[in-house]
């Protein structure tokens, strides 16, 4: 039994079966409950932990159907249309589900019905643990004896209905609809119609169902990484055939490993260009697994599912003598493997944007997202003409944050003559600048002060990219100096 802190003190939040049998109910003050039954054992209520537990159950239920949704704070909704026969029908599926939940040390009630609302109402209020309602049964008649709370109406509506003498769903069924809607709003009738199947309702799926998915249930759980990878390659073959029939390749692949005890491990790999070759797919997952410290197999996995949530057209091609294309594919393969191993955000392409602010001019974008990574034609246009005798204007190394320095300048607006960076004093021998970079005029919010950039060379030949933040006298009284990059 757990309690939660309320405005008025500690109140019961959830009960186990023996506590409910004593006549206690959620919402009761703990002091009252203790007065009635002094021997109560109480723990603190942890809604986040409950939510996590419930999400764990949702993940585990993906073995039955890809269409899953959370139902309130204490329920799951499984859309098993077209899936039940794989488990021997709705009854066996329900029994299997309840047995697995019981195996993990929890208790649950479940019901199947033709509409989600009816199933939810029956599971919560029918008092049966596993109720299977065949689709031809009249839902209105079945729901009629259930209390109105089963419709999960708002508390005020529920209280008002009870005051008017409506106790169960059947009481509302044959009442005129217009006065009900006028008095309680359309939501009440919508709920009623959705439950009895007169109106359709939509579920919020936890994961969008993938179009292409293959899975392999195992009679005996597997634990070894090699077995998992071997089976992945095995699974990738039917997936590749399915993708090939539609002329598609996968840009993202998900591998879900269902553990015997209900935990689900999900691995996702992406690729820069569409792939479907089983060997390539298995290689990507091998890199992903190698990056994990351990594939926590517990007592083993008994179901593997490989799905392709993101697909793109990939036509079959004639192999040619074009080495350029082969090299480009080899490069993409390398980038995919590195991204699978170290993460997409660590394999990067430096981009040069047309912006004055240095941080915005040079951005790093994940290489997998950038198409056509390398174009040899770009190499022919030298960025700097040979006549330009002053060397590069931008440093090859830039600090993530400009580092503050103590600088001495001869004139307030001039370049520094000497500065101290990381406790080392540098004497400036030559400087070029200032190159004044101000924030764009249209950006007023959070505008940084104008920067005067100088390229300086110290007496031992080291080159820095320094800037003075703020115009002397007009923007700030004492401008600060920073080193932003290193030329050499």
């Amino acid at each position, binding site marked *: 039994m757990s309690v939660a802190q309320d405005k008025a003190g500690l109140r019961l939040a959830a009960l186990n079966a023996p506590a409910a049998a004593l006549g206690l109910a959620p919402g009761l003050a703990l002091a009252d409950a203790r007065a009635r039954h002094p021997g109560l054992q109480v723990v603190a209520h942890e809604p986040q932990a409950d939510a996590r537990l419930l999400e764990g159950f949702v993940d585990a239920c993906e073995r039955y159907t890809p269409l899953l949704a959370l139902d309130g704070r204490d329920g799951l909704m499984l859309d098993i249309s077209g899936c039940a026969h794989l488990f021997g029908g709705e009854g066996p599926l329900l029994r299997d589900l309840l047995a697995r939940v019981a195996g993990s040390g929890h208790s649950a009630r479940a019901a199947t019905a033709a509409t989600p609302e009816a199933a939810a109402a029956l599971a919560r209020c029918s008092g049966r643990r596993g109720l299977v309602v065949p689709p031809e049964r009249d839902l209105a008649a079945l729901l009629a004896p259930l209390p109105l709370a089963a419709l999960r109406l708002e508390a005020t509506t529920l209280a008002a209905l009870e005051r008017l003498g409506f106790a169960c769903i059947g009481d509302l069924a044959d009442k005129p609809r217009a006065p009900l809607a006028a008095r309680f709003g359309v939501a009440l009738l919508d709920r009623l119609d959705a439950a009895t199947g007169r109106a359709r309702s939509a579920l919020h799926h936890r994961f969008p169902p993938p179009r292409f998915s293959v899975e392999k249930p195992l009679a005996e759980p597997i634990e070894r990484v090699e077995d998992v990878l071997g089976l992945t390659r095995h699974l990738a073959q039917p997936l590749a055939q399915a993708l090939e029939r539609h002329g598609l390749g996968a840009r993202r692949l998900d591998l879900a490993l269902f553990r015997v005890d209900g935990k689900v491990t999900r691995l996702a790999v992406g690729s820069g260009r569409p792939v479907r070759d089983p060997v390539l797919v298995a290689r990507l997952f091998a890199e992903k697994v190698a990056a994990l410290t351990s594939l926590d197999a517990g007592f083993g996995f008994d179901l593997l599912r490989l799905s392709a949530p993101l697909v793109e057209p990939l036509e079959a091609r004639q192999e040619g003598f074009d080495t350029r294309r082969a*090299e480009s594919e080899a*490069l993409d*393969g*390398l980038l995919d493997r*590195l991204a699978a191993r*170290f993460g997409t955000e*660590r*394999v*990067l*392409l*430096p*981009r*040069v944007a047309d912006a004055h602010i240095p941080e915005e001019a*040079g*951005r*790093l974008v994940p*290489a997998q997202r950038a198409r056509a*990574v*390398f174009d*040899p034609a*770009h*190499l022919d246009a*030298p*960025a*700097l003409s*040979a*006549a*330009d*005798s*002053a*060397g*590069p*204007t*931008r*440093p*090859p*190394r*830039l*600090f*993530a944050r400009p580092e503050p320095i103590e600088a001495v300048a*001869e004139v307030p607006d001039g*370049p520094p*003559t000497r500065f101290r960076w990381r406790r*080392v004093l540098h004497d400036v*021998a*030559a*400087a*070029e*600048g*200032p190159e004044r970079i101000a924030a764009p005029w249209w950006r007023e919010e959070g505008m940084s002060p104008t920067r005067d950039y*100088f*390229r300086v*060379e110290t007496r031992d*030949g*080291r*080159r820095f990219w320094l800037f003075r933040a703020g115009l002397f006298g007009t923007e700030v009284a004492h401008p600060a100096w920073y080193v932003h*990059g*290193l*030329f*050499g």
Partner: protein
Amino acid sequence: MPPSAGSAELAGLRRRIAALEGGSGPDGPSWGALPFGIADLDGTLGGGLAWGALHAATAAAPGQEGALLAFALALAARAARLRRAPVLLVQQELAGLEGGWLYGPGAQEAGLPEGALILVRVRRAEEALLVMEEALKCSAVCAVLGEVGTGVPDALTATRRLSLAARAGGALGLLLRPAPDPSPCAAVTRWSIAPQPSTPPDAFGGLGVGCVSARLMRNRQGPPGAWRLRLGPGDFALAPPRLMPREDSHDGARRPPLSQPLARPPLDRPGRTAPAA
């Protein structure tokens, strides 16, 4: 045993060893060399830096990572232009935090435009070596630069692995270290890079093209040596020897022809005209 039988046996053994060593001769791999374009330097190296081999470069002193990367990027740009293939740079996070991350516009001015350079950021030195090995095996990359911030564990074995991977793929491997490293290394050449004061472009002072001193510490193909190099975008030139130290306004020894030292106006202002040759 007749001498001919002995020599045939020896030749057979040599062939076996050559096969074990990856299909190339015992002396030099068959991939050729990347010339610097400086006759003296290329002669010392036997034609240039060997493709399909691992080279190592360290900064001559801590805090000179800028010159090290400038040298490496100039080399990489030269490799990319000759082989028409991209370059991969691995930066360990420590090196990036200490000496700054690779900056795209700067790399572009060094001769590596968008797309010609791929950056991989890793946390540990072992990961950097692993990325280097993977990339060196891939035929689509022409040069692999790895900047390692911390010590390389088991350096001889690690660099030997990289050498073998480079020999298999034919790319140029370059291991960059931020400080001199006495640990053994299987690289074909080892360089020590230090920044050098540049030659002012004109009498008004200002910055010239960046210079480094490249000291060849170890060379399997020939003697060691030292050169002062001017780094252009993808090309190298011998820097003229410095005749006099650059005067400093504080010393008052020599003053420029202007009454006070002025910063040279930058050449890169929008709308500038090309400087007169």
